[in-house]
């Protein structure tokens, strides 16, 4: 049976003009060979730092970024092969929640109007819409009395609930959540995460969860893919990746999270990486992490390592930690 979403060897390359008068052209390889699979009722998280390509991957699935190469299949259908009608049918099942609920909502529309919009576009009649909006507001924990309010009268957490209600309007199967809680106050973040987990249980949803906050990801994700400079460097069940990270970048990322426990301040081993992320316009040769890796060897700069199996479900792209002996796997 095919997966709900299958991204195979996705590449998104953007041409950029460089040079003093924009005379020369080069290419930013924002996403460079990413493969990710999501099953029904599953949460897969993509984590990584700014510029790693995690949001561009989500945008490519949504048709908001041009696909240079590779395939994106949703429910067995290649998204690139669809005509306008076919694409619109797919949008019913595929929705998105962005980071900033303020800019995601039209300030002049009431909450009810914003939530109703996808239903109107898909031709539901007014009576149905009215009832469905009330139902959706209840589902996300908004009081139906607030239906005529405008976003300006709501708090950040309430606005994000409106965005979630709108995403749920057409009963989608997959929601791409791009940093859904990072703009919210700490005391509100867990309310929204709990809501997302409850909706998944009740509605059988799948999430592609894009985030930089690893403690949030560990809590909500079934599987996690760690991206660096447009590539997945490690992928596996969230519990395994967090407990036994294999790639040195994953290790550094985990050790850099400040833990809310002052007693660990001196006892905890911290890996502080040197230097900045290389520019995706001018990535290093070989392994993308070679310029900052504490384990780098000269051979690492020669060829890009393949994503090798660490165990049946767990893959990493590192020639030092996962020497190429096992059969090479690229998913």
């Amino acid at each position: 049976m095919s997966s709900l979403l299958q991204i195979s060897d996705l590449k998104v390359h953007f041409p950029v003009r460089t040079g003093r008068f924009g005379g020369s052209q080069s290419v930013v390889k924002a996403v460079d060979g990413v493969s990710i699979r999501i099953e029904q009722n599953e949460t897969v998280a993509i984590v990584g730092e700014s510029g790693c390509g995690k949001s561009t991957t989500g945008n490519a699935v949504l048709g908001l970024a041009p696909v240079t190469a590779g395939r994106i299949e949703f429910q067995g259908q290649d998204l690139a092969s669809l005509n306008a009608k076919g694409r619109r049918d797919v949008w019913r099942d595929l929705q998105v929640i962005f980071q900033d609920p303020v800019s995601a909502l039209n300030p002049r529309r009431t909450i009810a109007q914003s939530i109703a919009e996808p239903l109107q576009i898909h031709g539901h009649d007014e009576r149905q819409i009215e009832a469905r909006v009330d139902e959706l507001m209840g589902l996300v924990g908004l009081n139906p009395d607030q239906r005529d309010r405008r976003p300006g009268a709501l708090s950040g957490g309430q606005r994000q609930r409106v965005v979630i209600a709108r995403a749920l309007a057409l009963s989608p199967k997959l929601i791409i959540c791009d940093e859904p809680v990072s703009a919210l106050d700490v005391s509100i973040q867990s309310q929204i995460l709990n809501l997302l987990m409850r909706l998944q249980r009740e509605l059988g949803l799948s999430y592609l969860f894009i985030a930089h906050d690893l403690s949030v990801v560990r809590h909500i994700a079934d599987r996690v893919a760690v991206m660096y400079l447009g590539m997945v460097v490690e992928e596996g069940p969230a519990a395994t990746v967090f407990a036994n990270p294999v790639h040195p970048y994953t290790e550094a990322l985990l050790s850099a999270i400040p833990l809310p426990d002052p007693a660990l301040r001196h006892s905890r081993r911290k890996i502080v990486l040197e230097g900045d992320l290389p520019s995706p316009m001018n990535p290093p040769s070989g392994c993308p992490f070679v310029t900052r890796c504490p384990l780098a060897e000269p051979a690492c700069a020669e060829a890009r390592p393949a994503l090798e199996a660490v165990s049946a479900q767990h893959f990493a792209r590192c020639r030092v930690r996962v020497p190429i002996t096992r059969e090479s796997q690229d998913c």
Partner: protein
Amino acid sequence: MSLLAIDDLAIGAADLSLVDGVTLSVEPGEVVALVGESGSGKSLTALSIMGLLADGLQRQRGSIEFDGVDLTQLADEQLRSLRGAELAMIFQEPVSSLNPLAAVGDQVAESLIVHGRSSVADAGREAIDMLRRVGIPEPERRARQLPTELSGGMCQRVMIAAALISRPRLLIADEPTTALDVTIQAQILALMSALAEEANTAILLITHDMGVVAEMADKVCVMYGGRVVEQGPVEALFATPRHPYTNMLLKTIPRLDEEPGQELFAIPGNVPSPRDWPVGCRFRTRCDRADETCAERPALTGQLHQVACHHALRGDA
């Protein structure tokens, strides 16, 4: 004597109270974290120390003593002579806080020149040295570049270099790593600690991230609704939080050692806007311990570990 002693500070606009009676102190060389969510008044408190409140906002009462001198009584001229020399500040957005049209080396050197501590030529050399110490590769070349030619992490290093070059006695850091990636955050926090320790610079660190607090602070001051609700030594505050808000805030953080998929602890309700703050304790509308006594404002009581709550949790005090 404390290096910084804020007493009963209140800030607001004409008919609006935003900070209401903040009292806190910072000792020489100490790292004090000022923690709170948006609207708690933490950034306004910091800006008022620097005399940088936006137009329309003013100090309504209270004093801010720095090294025994009440900053609120100083003329602009006198405050300017302290700012950048004795008192320095770094902001959340490094890119927008730097002048986009000036070479970063000149911006780092500026405070030395303005305060007449070095000649222009010496200041330029010191700036390059400072850029090297904050970990900027090829500082001679980088010093001539514009902020737009540097990454966000580099710009934050430049701001730290500019803030610390005159060896201030107090550094106010307002969410200094919030806009940065976690591996860069780890670098910047380590750098700030090392440089501050070397020059015995005290840090007032404003943040919403309890993880950053636990790693950096000696003392923590928790704000909610424009007031200090709890303050104390970092170990005590994390081990035995006494205010229900602090306790809940610590419980909401998803921990790396907790069972995934379980419902997270959530504080009920929303952060109220300043116009909707309840009378008395401002947390009482979201608090599970609240009763009618909470309609009266609780005082901040205690010695080292202080709490403002009629029904404080049992602690170590």
